[in-house]
């Protein structure tokens, strides 16, 4: 055999050996002892509702205790409150956690309350109910120095009839992505293992399994933010790093409470071609298309047509439409209250000025899913408060228009039979103007107490108004 060929074979053999040696070097016995201390099995019922359809499903997750006081992290994809469908179609797709039981591997059982899920990573959080008990918890190690080819491991949940109910798995760092964001891709794992803790070769917990979102797959949700709802196709899995997790653990996302900064603009990418056309020497930028009244952008003095080319002195590199969501996420993650400086080019007729404007980000507007809801069991429908997106998508003036949105109708229920539709905006009941769900509750309670034969709803539907008479059967 030729010497070089032999050499090559030996070389390949050595590489393969070293890889397998590294893979085999995981001391799973030691890891398992660690793992079972702070890992839990979560059993919960999730109620899903899609407009008039409701169903409850039981789900099991592997969870990890992340703080002494019983904060538990798990895959909260099913409970992520975001959905842009709600406002666009009026159909409220919702999921809520019911009856949560958390079991440690030593058999101890706790009840828990769902706190919220992070919309970017879909990591969900629960808190165990206990009397000041101190729980063993995981401590993530930040700043990994993994290289392509390094092996990592995780534990996954096994079916209920298997004991023990966990099983180890290994994967390999396959690429270190630079754009759209710094991200270690891993092969060997699958989407069912999302949010499982990832350990490096030294058994350090360095993050959890998450996915890289394709910015071109993201749609813009009603509040103008990134929507992680529709990443179809093969997920690109990798590491959600410890420093990102630590932030969430310190201040867990809360359902119904926004932790995202909001600027209040509709935006467009400054493409290379446009920059050339306008003779701007820029790598990218954001063109302001629209500004929400009284939003941070509005207050900062931004104008439609302005081009943002720097944020806090960092150049904006967005030059394609599909990169816009990266910009949106950056703004969102700065959080409400953050003060942001924009360098702006304003095309004043012939004069091109460059100016700096400061906007103080606010809470992003409430989503339809998080809006307070009123349930009327006699007429068998639910209505929720109007949110920013309702005004935006239906072209309604938020200063003059008031009402509440029909969010659920029971199939075959009185409200449905008599002609209410999901998405209808109730503006008046009888002669009473409805501005919020309390108004609706008051007037419907009164109708019930008086045993009124009929209730006349004045509603807004598809840009027109009409009356709907619900004949009661108290």
């Amino acid at each position, binding site marked *: 055999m030729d010497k070089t060929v032999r050499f090559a074979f030996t070389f390949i053999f050595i590489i393969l050996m070293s890889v397998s040696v590294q893979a085999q070097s995981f001391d799973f016995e030691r890891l398992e002892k660690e793992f079972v201390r702070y890992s839990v099995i979560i059993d919960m019922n999730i109620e899903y509702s899609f407009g008039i359809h409701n169903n409850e499903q039981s789900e099991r997750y592997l969870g990890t205790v992340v703080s002494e006081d019983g904060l538990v992290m798990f895959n909260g994809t099913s409970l992520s409150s975001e959905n842009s469908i709600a406002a666009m179609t009026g159909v409220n797709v919702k999921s809520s956690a019911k009856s949560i039981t958390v079991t440690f591997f030593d058999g101890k059982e706790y009840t828990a309350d769902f706190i919220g899920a992070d919309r970017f990573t879909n990591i969900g959080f629960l808190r165990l109910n206990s009397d000041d008990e101190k729980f063993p918890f995981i401590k993530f190690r930040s700043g990994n120095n993994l290289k392509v080819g390094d092996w990592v491991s995780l534990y996954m949940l096994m079916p209920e009839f298997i004991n023990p109910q966990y099983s180890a798995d290994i994967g390999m760092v396959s690429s270190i992505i630079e754009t759209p964001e710094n991200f270690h891709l891993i092969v060997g794992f699958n989407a069912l293992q999302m949010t499982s803790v990832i350990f490096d070769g030294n058994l350090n917990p360095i993050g959890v399994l998450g996915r890289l979102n394709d910015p071109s797959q993201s749609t813009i949700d009603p509040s103008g933010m990134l929507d992680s709802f529709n990443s179809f196709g093969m997920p690109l899995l990798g590491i959600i790093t410890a420093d990102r997790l630590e932030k969430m653990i310190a201040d867990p996302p809360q359902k119904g409470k926004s932790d995202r900064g909001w600027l209040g603009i*509709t935006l*467009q990418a400054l*493409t290379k*071609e*446009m920059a050339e*056309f306008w003779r701007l020497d820029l790598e990218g930028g954001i*063109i302001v*298309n*629209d500004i929400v009244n009284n939003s941070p952008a509005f207050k900062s003095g931004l104008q*439609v*047509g302005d081009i943002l080319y720097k944020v806090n002195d960092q150049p904006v590199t967005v030059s394609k*439409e599909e990169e816009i969501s990266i910009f949106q996420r950056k703004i969102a993650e700065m959080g409400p209250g953050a003060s942001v400086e924009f360098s702006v080019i304003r095309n004043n007729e012939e004069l091109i000025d460059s100016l700096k404007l400061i906007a103080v980000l606010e809470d992003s507007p409430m989503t339809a899913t998080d809006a307070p809801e009123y349930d009327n069991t006699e007429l068998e429908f639910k209505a929720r408060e109007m949110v920013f997106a309702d005004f935006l998508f239906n*072209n309604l003036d938020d200063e003059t228009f008031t009402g509440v949105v029909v969010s659920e109708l029971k199939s075959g229920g009185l409200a449905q039979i008599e002609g209410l539709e999901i998405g209808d905006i109730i503006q008046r009941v*009888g002669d009473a103007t409805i501005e919020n769900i309390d108004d609706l509750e008051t007037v419907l309670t009164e109708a019930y107490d008086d045993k009124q034969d*009929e209730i*006349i709803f*004045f509603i807004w539907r598809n*840009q*027109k*108004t*009409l*009356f709907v*008479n619900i*004949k009661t059967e108290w």
Partner: protein
Amino acid sequence: MRKIVLSICLFLFPGLLYATPAIQNEIYQARENVMPALVHIQPVIKNFQTGEMEKQAVIGSGVIFHPDGYVVTNYHVAGKAERIICTLNDKEIVPATYIGGDPMTDISVIQLDLENYTGKIHIAEFGDSDSVQVGQYVMAMGSPLSLSRSISLGVISTKDRYFSSDVRLPSGERTGRYNLWLQTDAAINPGNSGGPLVDLNGKIVGINSRAQMFANNIGFAIPINIVKRVANEVIKNGKVTRSWIGLHCQPMQDLEGYFGTNRNSGVLISSIDADSPAEHAFLKAGDIVLKVNDTPVSARFVEELPLFYNMIAQYAPGTSIALEVKRNNEVFNFNVVTKKLGDLQGEDFECKDWGFTVKAITKQMQIDNQLEDTVGVYVVGVKNIGAGDGGGLRRRDVIKKVNETEIVEFTDFTSSYNQMVLEKKEKILLTINRGGATRYVLLDISDIEGMKTDG
């Protein structure tokens, strides 16, 4: 007992014996009256939906109703026709010209070009759709699935079917607000559109227009009394002029108690278009119109709405009409000056070099599409590969500016397009409005040309 049975048999027997030939003869007779006037229509229509002007051959039916060779058909058959070829019942092919039409009632009129036709045209007679009875025999004549000179037989299933104004023609126009429909179980298939629905006296009682898909024999015809009026006006003016005040009404049924009105009294206003004469006259949703120029009106059921809408529409635009209105149990008088119900759709234009098609924005389009105003041009379609597509232009965008030229009138756009094509401008910046936001679309024509030569 036996006697009775026998006598019943005697009575019935001759009836059974003769019933079939009697109706058969009537069918023959009716066929003879109308069939020779039946026309198979093959228009070539212009379609702008895909971002370029595409010609499409379609099939429809029609019937000659006038000695000058006028043929009535549907608007959705001949309305956008560029050229029309007709085949008469004697199988002779005759060209025809488009005279005009009315998308609201889906009626159009074409005229046969009889110069080179040696035969003698037959004229079918219009009957009276008001006196049509449910259950009465009718025949649908036309070219179902292009099978010309076909007859199907059925009965009138109902004579006052109402479709809300949300029904649209294939070309996008709202239709049906001003008329009820005759429903029949005589088979109506694609291609029957525009053909006559004929009674056994050989008179046309309706123009077949639509059928329920995936159903068994649920077809709809426009009552001939409406067709008569529309066709006459179309021959005279090319279209039907209607007054518009911007009212939407709903039936009063079950709401009389709440509004304190008598049964069969008043028409309930449910919605009012923004910036409409009704809004300017301070009418409100919840008002009940009791009288229009002293004539009492009512609409307890949806089927009564077209009558009311027509009553308003029939006034000449600019007429001041007096509405007696009940509001909060008091009666007020409102004077509303009507406006012309303009075209439902604007003129189409193909920007061939830029790879998209546009349309002028009419007031009705503004209302339908929730546009801020009628300023600019409306993007109808964007070609898959072209400068518009490359620049990110989309359907339903409104172009407000072409480079520095503000687009106010439709001609502002067409002339700047023509000029820029003439000047061979390679980069054009469109300022557009998309859902209320201002965006910029850069058209790069050089790029597209490059692609063409590369390909």
